[in-house]
């Protein structure tokens, strides 16, 4: 592109909107165990917010504000998922057996904590990593 286009409206709206999308994606992720949503769709939503940022700005800017290596993120996600599964082995249970209980937490009061969420975090990170790796790779390849 020879001339930098004037994207003032797009950029301003993106700044606001992307945070809303982030929030929505995090909601989807955490609500996944009880209502529609979960790691996969949450991850995709987060990636969508990042893509919106990409469209409004460019790859370099995005890398400056969010300096992630998405391939490492993929690897981390896979590792978390596998370790969650392997954790069950420590308690003499079959691979990928989940456990949950209710805890009294300082701010939140009585909360249920479930190891399936850890697994879902793995899924979530992997999906973001994968989507962003693909889009960045293809975008940079010009």
């Amino acid at each position, binding site marked *: 592109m020879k001339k930098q286009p004037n994207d003032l409206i797009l950029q301003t709206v993106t700044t606001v909107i992307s945070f809303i999308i982030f929030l929505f994606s995090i909601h989807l992720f955490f609500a996944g165990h009880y209502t529609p949503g979960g790691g996969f*769709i949450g991850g995709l939503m987060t990636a969508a917010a990042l893509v919106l940022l990409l469209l409004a700005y460019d790859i370099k800017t995005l890398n400056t504000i969010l300096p992630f290596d998405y391939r490492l993120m993929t690897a981390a996600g896979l590792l978390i998922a596998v370790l969650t*599964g392997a954790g069950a082995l420590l308690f003499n249970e079959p691979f*990928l057996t989940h456990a949950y209980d209710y805890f009294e937490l300082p701010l939140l009061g009585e909360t249920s904590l479930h190891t399936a969420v850890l697994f879902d975090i*793995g899924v979530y990170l992997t999906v973001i990593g994968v989507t962003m790796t*693909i889009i960045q790779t293809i975008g940079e*390849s010009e």
Partner: protein
Amino acid sequence: MSLLHLAILLPFIAAVFVPFLFKGFRSIHTGWFVLLVPLALFIYFIQYMPVTSSGQTVSQTFEWIPSLGINFTAYVDGLGLLFALLITGIGSLVVLYSIYYLAKEKEALGNFYVYLLMFMGAMLGLVLSDNMIVLYMFWEFTSISSFLLIGYWYDKERSRYGAQKSMLITVFGGLSMLGGIVLLYIMGGTFSIRELIGMSGDLMTEPLFLFAMILILLGAFTKSAQFPFHVWLPDAMEAPTPVSAYLHSATMVKAGIYLVARMSPVFAESGVWLWLVAGFGIFTLFWGSFNAVKQTDLKGILAFSTISQLGLIMSLLGLGAAALHFDTLDENMYMTATIAAVFHLINHATFKGALFMMAGIVDHETGTRDIRKLGGLVNLMPITFTIAIIGSFSMAGLPPFNGFLSKEMFLTGMISVFELDLFNLNTWGILFPVLAWVASVFTFIYSIMLVFKTFLGKPQFDKLPKKPHEAPIGMLISPLVLVSLVIIFGFFPNLLSNSMIKPAVEAILPSLTDAGQEVYVDIYFWHGFQPELFMTLGIILTGTLMYATLAKWQGIYNRIPERFTINGVYDRGLDKSESGSFKLNEVVMTGYMRSYLIYIFAFFVAILLSTMGIRDAFAVDTSNLAEIRIYEVALALVLIAGAITILFAKSRLTSIVLLGVVGYSVALFFVFFRAPDLALTQLVIETVSVALFLLCFYHLPEISRKEERMKFKMGNAVISVLVGVTVTLIGIASFSNSQAFESISQYHIDNVYELAAGGNMVNVILVDFRGFDTLFEICVLGVAALGIYAMVNFRGVRRQKR
């Protein structure tokens, strides 16, 4: 592991040390070390002669794979011992001969003796095995070592051709034989030949009996160069002459004879056996002798002569089977045929070995084996001439040599066909004596030709590459020993009758001797004015006459066009099968993805529809159908419209957008069918993939970017409609049968909160109940991302490396 096993394996063990001897003792010809092996074995096997001639047998078992019934059972009876003595005896003579024939400076002697010892061990194992799988193993060892020996001078084109040809034909036969062995095992439940012989009466009625017999006979016929599988033997003459003398006259080609003789007790009650073995044998006899006259190469003549003599033995073995249909031995004239077969087997090994060695000497001393260039050697090579004349006259069946005796017995056997009232032999059987007589005439002609054209006639030494002179004494010892045997067996045939022939015949026809009767073998020169005497006289007269007029009628051989010879058929068959496979490959493997997809889909449709048809699996059951709602119909119409329009879209951009329409419609279906998670995912994924399609579209190269409608192809349309119909039919049928089992989903509904503390059942199944699947699905995603990253970023690296 007994001493007998060690004796059989000794040549293999010795073969291991040959290369060291060859490298370590360069000044001594390696053959001298090797010579000890067959000599020792010959002496060892001689010891069994009193055992077998008194009717005893020796059997030693060494367990190899007992769980499969495969044991190395060494079994020595009359037949096995006869062959073992031939193998070791002629083996010693051949090794001695080869010491003088092959120069130690020029030849790769290490290879030669390793192959030869391998062959010797394989032959010994073959004739002394009772277990058919072990027999088959040694059988293939002989094929392989023979292949190596024929291709010994591997830098010669003809050697390689001959080796390949013999390999293809004998291995084809060997594999057929394996099939026959397996069939016999299925029928009899054992690999042991002796046990099979014991149940031969029951085997006759089995439906597989005939197949087993034909397959075993295929093995025997290919190995023993019977018509039409004889074509490999003349081409195997490219081997060094000791090899031809050993393998292609005395031992390997008799492996098929051995097999027929060994299996006779199992199969011979059947008339098919008699007709097949005797019929192929007698025709081979005729064909071989007829073609031998045409040859101009000494070894060529001997090769066809071997074919013809093997046919003779084979036909005698076939006719000998008729003896089984008589109860007493006293008046059993068909016994003569078997006795003649065994006797001629011994005789043939002696004179043919001598003749091959004679041919080798002539070749060695004159530089050629072409009888058109040879002549008048009698004064220069008197000893060789003596060898040749004794061998040839014995081969022609002239008195007083041993060939005369076996030829007379052969004719007696053939005449006795007239009196046999079995299997139509009294009508078609007339062919046997006629062919036998004609073949004997030709045998006479080529035998005379062999001697007269080489040693008599006008000398033409200027045509010879070398100046001829008598061979060294070392080279002459072996053929001299063999021709002395020819004469000894000729004058004193009863030396052999009780010690060798009787036990061998008893082994071939055990059911007769088991009944307590004794085979009576007495061979004598003069048996009165019988028809066979006049036949012999006729052979000599006609043969002499035809030899004198040879030049006048030799032209008929050129009348047979090359196309119709078996060789021509073999060569063209090989060519055609090669070019045919190549063509087939070219037609089927087009290299176009679309062809392969058509194959895949066509098979998919054919297999599924025919399965449904055969199983009568078409089923329509409407009782479980849900109510159809109007918005489902509307959405389905949108979906169908979108899908069909893709097919007719002119531009790719339209197709991509229409694909998006289909995807979003599917997402809406998920909404209607109450699958919110799926709908969410489908929407986002559809967006991403449409974006990626657009990216691809944007990067299409300019040149081929013609916007045009998809071409209509009838075949593709038919296939795609059929695939659609097949899948639909299966879908309908399986839905109609889906009530057969209760769904397991109730478990998930009941336990989603109880066990997994969740509310979203889909997500709980994904991460908890069936989390293992999810783990690998995210792995798939990770691999895909890394794959794309690698593909995009490492293009340059790969190109540089190229």
